[in-house]
């Protein structure tokens, strides 16, 4: 399940068409179990964003953190933006997926996750 963080995986309902991210066992809209795993688009538009100045423990070195909701073809994902100054982000900005490191976990692992950067 956690592979979804690297693969950008959601689930599409084959009955009503609703695409869910994070993936769900059953469709949240119509309860159908007739869902399939789909790879989501890797290019999208920012629909909302925030810049976090007060981090939780473990993320102090990354702060300020720019977080965005990105619409990738009708499905919204939550992600960190990279390669852009906080003040340059705007609603409607075009962004694309890339791989970056996240904060070290309490047991010492350095997870790599998908972040989004501005479309060049």
């Amino acid at each position, binding site marked *: *399940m*956690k592979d*979804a*963080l690297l693969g950008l995986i959601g689930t599409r309902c084959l009955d009503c068409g609703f695409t*869910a*991210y*994070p993936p*769900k066992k059953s469709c*949240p*809209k119509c309860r159908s179990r007739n869902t399939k795993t789909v790879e989501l688009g890797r290019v999208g538009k920012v*629909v*909302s*964003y*925030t*810049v*976090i*100045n*007060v*981090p*939780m*423990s*473990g*993320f*102090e070195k*990354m702060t300020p*953190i720019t*977080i*965005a*909701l990105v619409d990738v073809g009708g*499905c*919204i*994902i*939550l*992600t*960190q933006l990279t390669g852009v100054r*906080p003040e340059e982000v705007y*609603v409607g900005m075009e962004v694309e997926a890339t791989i970056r490191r*996240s*904060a070290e976990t309490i047991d010492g692992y350095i*997870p790599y*996750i998908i*972040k989004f950067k501005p479309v060049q």
Partner: protein
Amino acid sequence: MWETFLRKVYVVGIGLTNVGRFYERSLRDLASEALIKALDDVGNITPEGMVVSNMLSSLIEQENLASLIADYSGLRGISGFKVEAACGSGGAAILAAYSLVSSGLMDIVAVVGVEKLSERPTPEVTRGLAYAADADYEIPYGVTFSGLNALVMRYYMSKYGVKREEIAVWPVLMHENGYKNPYAQLRMRITIDDVLKSPVIADPIRLYDSCPLSDGAAALILASEDIARKLNDTPVLIAGVGNALDSTDITSRFELDTFLASRLSAERAYRMSKLGPKDVDVAELHDAYSINGILTLEDVGFAPKGQGAKLLSEGRFRPGDKPVINPSGGLKSRGHPVGATGVYQVCEVVMQIRGDFPGIKVPCDVGLTQNIGGVGSNISTVILKRGD
């Protein structure tokens, strides 16, 4: 369901501690103060059961709270357990206690909400609060609870063309109300300028849009219809309860600017009580951030969608209006002792109906409380009514 119930249930006693940061006090000490005040409010009765609400006592390495609090308060031997629904734990515990009494399993049940976080450094508490979000799909990105609400706030503002200053009216009103509440944590008046110049926590959420980190405890004594009047001359009827769940993550929401669980839990409580939003004289809503207050004004049915901030900035919802919103000062000024907040809200509305709230008094027969867990993912609504 949410239409029929077996026995009517009344609130016959309430007790609460001040909300604040009590470095010199323990969790059991706060919980016991509230519980004993509530028991004494009825005349030192012995409840048959107790439901405790709390979110983050694991941060101070204490679980199994029901036995700890019962024993410390002289109630060893009664029944009890803890309910957890993040910041919505208090409302959920009230639903559980309501069910115990309504079903006939018990006649008298105490609800004790408690939170004690001030020992822990802020980054650790911030992480703990984020446990209410999706640990696999939200937390790895470093998004905090403030950050998630900030995403909702910006979306709402851009969808409905709401101005930043209009939303800043919320915390100004909360401090105006809470200034007169002796239990409140932040008793000072602020201006819109103060809000707009306060430090940015998670843009566009600023410090003065955010509730403080709080310690506190509140308790209720619930009793069945046949004995409520023998215990108390002014029992307050729990006319309706409702709870609803939404996604834990905010990304798969059907609407980003609506708390579905707020609307559904309110509808369930309205249906059960045979009352509607127009009947409500006073409401205590869950404004962990200004945007939560605005959204729930709409989702509970006090304002049309997209109009909450506008109506507020035009002068609605103040003392003298119907409904009056958060005469306690809300989470913003009274404070947000996380797992206890839902219990505080009901204590405050019970006092409003009885006429003994020590702050701004609202003449009322019907009150509503709504308590939110997560970013709108687990929401409980309680409707209270003057006893027949």
